[in-house]
């Protein structure tokens, strides 16, 4: 609950901090990129605050490099 609020709050704060400057200088493309990343950030934070299970990058690493690692360790035993 608090986590969700904090996430949105922070997101708003950050937007309020960076966006006015960007829009005043007509840097729309940058504003879009900023908002994209901010959206990802807010989403992640909110989901995490709601204890939604999210994918783990380390697991991806295990999947990608796992077999190779096993073979290397086999050699080094």
């Amino acid at each position: 609950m608090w986590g969700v609020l904090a996430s949105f709050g922070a997101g708003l704060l950050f937007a309020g901090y960076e966006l006015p400057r960007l829009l005043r200088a007509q840097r729309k493309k940058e504003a879009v990129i900023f908002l994209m990343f901010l959206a990802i950030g807010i989403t992640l934070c909110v989901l995490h605050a709601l204890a939604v299970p999210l994918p783990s990058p380390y697991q991806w690493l295990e999947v990608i490099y796992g077999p190779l690692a096993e073979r290397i360790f086999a050699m080094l035993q």
Partner: protein
Amino acid sequence: MERGRISAQQLMIMMVLFVLGDTILVLPGSTAMLAGKDAWISGLLTVAAGLGLIWFYAAFQKRFPAMTLVDVSVNLLGRWLGGAVSFFFLFGYLLLLAASMLRVLGDFMTTHVLPNTPVQFIYLLFLVISVKAVRSGLETIARTAEIVFPWVVMLITLLIMFVVPQSRLYHIEPVMAEGIKPILAGMYIFLAYAFMEPVAFYMVMPFVRLRQGKGLRKPLLLGSGMGGLILVVIIFFCLTVFGPVITRESIYPSYLLAKKIELGEFLQRIEVIMAITWLFTLFFKLIISFYGTCLGAAQLFKLKDYRLLTLPLAMILMVLPDLLAPSVIGISEIGQVYPLFDWTFSVGLPLCLLLVQLVRQKMKRSRSSEEQGALPQKGEPR
């Protein structure tokens, strides 16, 4: 967009702090797990190999002066392929590295120092100063490193001094009883964590102010060498004070080492002060990776100011560390696989880029014999 310039000396100091990063906390245990009581030999060999690797970094950077890794990729591979490669480097590798630093920090603090504090606050505080650091620019980061460095060195020296009387050489004997294979296994992690992860410096090296005739090689080699040797010393003392069994069973043997400091009745259990050492080294590894990510992203998306993405990326960094693995055990288990990840980006990527450049040079030369083999755009980075 980064108009700051740092000196060679500052680069060296940042390199030492970066190399020590999480390794000072994590490596003694992991290396001992693989190499047992010969872990210190692993260390020495790794430093030797690692210096070669660093030499390669310096040489690579020399071929592409004033260009960050993103610049080089985009230049050699074109906007789309180079962009994709950079994207993976920045958000797949560097950002993950930063998140890993935070995770190590969080795990350490919640298990040993502030057990009652929710880890989000630990992340939050660290991110506040990290964002402040990255937004303040490379020069500020470099200068802060210069200020902090003597203290880190002093603390480590004190640690060693206090611990020497308690070390027993029999713990590491007989030397090389198990043969060379465990030692090589130990090198597997050590080399990756200590000498490959500094690939992040590819985002920083273009901004070094070099004097006539001097190159990047010396500060980089000195810095990484010093860092590596410090690590070897710490591993050595972990082994000789506790023995290999305890060293490999504990997750943070250097902290255990710090617990051994005592001076009479009154100066004991001050290991928290020692913890400041790795708070600083983790901090620097984090901010240099974070800085690299932001700067690279700005180059990739052609942003005017790299500081734009600091806040959104910081939000992502609040969550990423928790996603990495469900528990502390997971973090040390990743040590099996992570080094290969390091190999990919730290050796694989530069080698490929180098290959592409050589091929292009050959093609250019064969296409027209009058034209000089043109190197990609040299010039000041944006």
